[in-house]
């Protein structure tokens, strides 16, 4: 299995297209950081517009707010919605790519079961996803900390502003990145499942992108009828639960309590939903693949 996994990883990282995602992430992060460095205060004016009537919003306040933790959160807010599309590039190619090149039949002549073969393929996709996330963490978190320094993290939610002490932030990022790994693995599993049906990688990649886009839009719809009927069952609704690690418990005077999370059971529930999806997608992919006539 391990040898097979090594071969799969070699194949993934030999392909130039694998590095498109790394390049895209680096481009987005660096462009965002440069923009924030030179014009971050204008960006902040948009979110601070609501509080500037009641509170002092000086340039010094804005520059303190624009610290590495804040920049990283803003980047994750943008990128973790788009990143599933990058993850699909590899997972969608896992089986369909082999079928397209005509190597699938040859691969299955090895003394491994189809289940093992599929599991190895999926594990390779997970490793790629994790590396992508580590790359994002290095650039967005540590890069921003280096360029912008650290301070308290302030998060502007729709109806609440959350503030946490700088020493209470790092563990939240580790937890959030851990959660993001599960969320992206769900997309990877979906692309992997679709990959079984196709004989060309483009199909599953585009299909995954379309499904993620449609469901994300549906998750963000402000239509009450969907809130309890549709949204709780969409994996895209639960993919944003990484943010829950930055929602802090507060006492009756709205004083935040260090080291707490507002609703940990909800995050764990969301994670449970994603794990069910992963098992469902991968299980179905294996089940179909085991019964499939491999003609290429």
């Amino acid at each position, binding site marked *: 299995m391990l040898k097979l996994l090594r071969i799969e990883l070699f194949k993934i990282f030999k392909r130039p297209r694998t590095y498109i995602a790394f390049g895209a992430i680096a481009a987005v992060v660096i462009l965002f950081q440069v923009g924030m460095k030179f014009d971050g205060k204008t960006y902040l004016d*948009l*979110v601070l517009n*609501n*509080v500037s*009537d*009641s*509170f*002092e919003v000086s340039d010094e*306040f804005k520059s*303190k*707010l624009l610290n590495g933790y804040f920049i990283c959160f803003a980047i994750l*807010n943008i990128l973790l*919605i788009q990143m599933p599309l990058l993850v699909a590039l590899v997972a969608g190619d896992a089986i369909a790519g082999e079928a397209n090149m005509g190597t699938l039949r040859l691969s299955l002549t090895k003394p491994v079961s189809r289940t093992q073969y599929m599991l190895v393929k999926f594990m390779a996709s997970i490793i790629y996803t994790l590396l992508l996330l580590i790359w994002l963490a290095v650039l967005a978190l540590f890069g921003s900390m280096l360029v912008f320094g650290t*301070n*308290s993290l*302030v998060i*502007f*939610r*729709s*109806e*609440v*502003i*959350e*503030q*946490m*002490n*700088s020493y*209470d932030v790092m563990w939240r990022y580790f937890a959030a990145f851990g959660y993001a790994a599960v969320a992206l693995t769900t997309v990877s599993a979906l692309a992997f499942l679709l990959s079984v049906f196709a004989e060309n990688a483009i199909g599953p990649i585009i299909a995954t992108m379309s499904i993620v886009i449609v469901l994300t839009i549906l998750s*963000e719809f*402000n239509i009450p009828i969907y809130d309890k009927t549709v*949204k709780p069952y969409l994996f895209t*609704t639960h993919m*944003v*639960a*990484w*943010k*829950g690690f930055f*929602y*802090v418990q*507060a006492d009756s*005077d*709205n*004083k*935040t309590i*260090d080291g707490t999370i*507002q*609703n940990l059971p*909800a*995050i764990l529930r*969301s994670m449970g939903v994603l794990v069910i999806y992963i098992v469902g997608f991968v299980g179905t992919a294996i089940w179909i693949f085991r019964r499939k006539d491999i003609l290429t």
Partner: protein
Amino acid sequence: MVLLLSMVLLVNAQTPDDVIKNVKAKLDKVNDYQAKGKMKTNVIFIKAPVANVKVYYKKPNKLRINNESGISFIPKGSVNINLGNIFVNTNGFDIIDMGIEAKTNLRIIKLLPRDENSDVVLSTLYIDESQSLIKKATTTTKENGTYELHMTYGKYADYGLADKVIFSFNIKDYKLPKGITFDYDDGSKKKESPDKLKDKKGKVEITYSDYSINKGVPDSIFK
């Protein structure tokens, strides 16, 4: 006997002008100060930790609150935390005596600025006459609503400086479109107090631990 007591009280009673003069004299002892303190912000839409702050003041009305270890949401009009600010009015003010508040035994005096362009419309002071200390002040402004101050005094009472100040101020609604924030709905219910008016008020509480009085504060601090 009752008549005699009343006469003694009348003889000893201070005129509102005297009360204000005594309070002002006490506050005038302070040219500048810097103080360390802990600041607690209580606003319905802000969840924030207690901040360690440094408060700088310089006559006549310069005040700055610095959170050196982090970020703090400082309310507009926080300069009013400094009581001396009430008396900063170039054209002076008319004084109206409202008598003694029965429950607290504090003298209530209203100040009406004579300057028509002054942002402050009215200040109501609740004064402990015996110590010449303002215990509570309500200031109504043209632009920024009404501010309220509650003071608790300790070892710096001789300078008219409080150990604890609670500053209440008006807040406006806060809302950002969900399309920008992409919030995660964790099912937690939005905190709402039964008193809607209370939601429109914010509170900042500063508990001072140490004052350094009349040792000089550079102007650069206030820039």
